[in-house]
């Protein structure tokens, strides 16, 4: 998570990745509202019953979630399941969570460390997104990569050959531990 330096006022400033501490209290909008928001998201996600995506906070820290997405039908990722981590900053939802693949994913917009290049997680982020729409966006990114700005050039080059690509996905895929 990038630091937002130089802002005045009593807004908490996120300083590093995987922030564990809740924000110090601000006057009107404080860490309570982030907490409340994340709890609402969790509820909504559990009620929504979307197939192919899920997410849940880690044991005792609602600022760190684990999520899963499955590869959509009729894509080269069909039948695969990927685990992701989501780390929410103190100023969420003003700033996006840091989302990474924990399961290796051979994809043009995912690097070997699981970092994802997706505009809504960077400069096109807005508070209108939530965990559910993030996961759905990543799920659709799997089948519709952005080939023009790849993080994994090898995957980008192979994409045009879907048959070979599927073989590569199968070869490299390691199912996440339950």
């Amino acid at each position, binding site marked *: *998570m*990038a*630091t*937002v*330096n*130089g*802002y*005045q*006022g*009593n*807004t908490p400033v996120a*300083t*590093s*990745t995987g922030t564990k501490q809740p924000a110090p209290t*601000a*006057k*009107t*909008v*404080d860490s309570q*509202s982030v907490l*409340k*928001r994340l709890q*609402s*998201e969790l509820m*909504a996600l559990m009620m929504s019953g979307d197939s192919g995506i899920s997410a849940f906070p880690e044991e005792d820290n609602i600022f760190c979630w684990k999520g899963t997405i499955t590869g959509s039908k009729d894509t080269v990722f069909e039948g695969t399941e990927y685990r992701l981590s989501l780390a929410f900053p103190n100023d969420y*939802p*003003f700033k996006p969570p840091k989302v990474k693949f924990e399961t290796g994913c051979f994809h043009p917009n995912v*690097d*070997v*460390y699981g*970092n994802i*290049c997706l*505009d*809504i997680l*960077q*400069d*096109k*982020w*807005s*508070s*209108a*997104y*939530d965990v*559910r729409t993030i996961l759905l966006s990543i799920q659709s990114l799997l089948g519709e990569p952005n080939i023009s700005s790849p*993080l*994994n*050039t*090898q995957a980008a080059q192979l994409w045009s050959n879907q048959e070979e690509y599927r073989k590569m996905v199968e070869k490299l895929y390691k199912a996440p531990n339950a």
Partner: protein
Amino acid sequence: MQNREGVVADGEKESAVSIPVSEFDDWAKFADDDIMQQQSAFHAEEAKKVPFVGDKEPLTMLAAEYESGSPILLEKIKLLGQQYAAIRRTRGDGNCFFRSFMFSYLEYVLESQDHAEVDRIKGNVEECRKTLQSLGYADFTFEDFFALFLEQLDSVLQGNEDSISQDELIIRSRDQSISDYVVMFFRFVTSGEIRKRSEFFEPFILGLTNATVEQFCKSSVEPMGEESDHVHITALSDALGVPIRVVYLDRSSCDNGGVSVNHHDFVPTSGGHSNATSGSTEPVSPFITLLYRPGHYDILYPK
């Protein structure tokens, strides 16, 4: 660009070129974080120059800015001086239109104590809430922003326990945790209005970008820092039912060489109509006046 917070421990950038399995656990974060740090550094620079909402300055300060500049602009500023007394600058962080609108509107209510206007806009805000719900937005994504705006609205009305002074309004408008929430509220409202009336807005949006209405809202309305255009102003004015005057300070001049200052009034007509059906002959006097210079909005104060 210096790395801060130890984002990249080693700085082995060249390893990013191939696709190695390397021990540099964090290199790929480098690109994005670097860009974002650059952006935040830029915003920090901006912050030093101008607060979110500045102090009220006499219009002569504007003239001083262009002292050795274009004679057309100086002439126009002179003309502006006949009608306007002061300017209040806002930070050029891409949110200046919404931030100017926020302050200008709340300041108007604070000064006028116009209870009828507050009741009226609350009705519109409720409509906006329904619009977002019907468009499929989850309540929790926007409700905090709505609540915070309504809270500001109540607090500028005097006589309540939570009433605030003009000074406090300025302090709040400079406090990121409040100011940005209200800006985001306006972004939600604007986006909802555009999507609700996508047929009306579509041709204007096509004139600006190649995007669909929804893509436009997702990439140019909802994210913080995205600049506002006529489309945004029209939509916000319609959604909240608040007329807005925009005065243009640019280098254009009339064919005959004469200089005049143009303005455009964004006027939502009552009764569920909107800027869409302009041509109304009734004179309106917008109580929000913004000064537009290419790429930026500030607040203007009439004499």
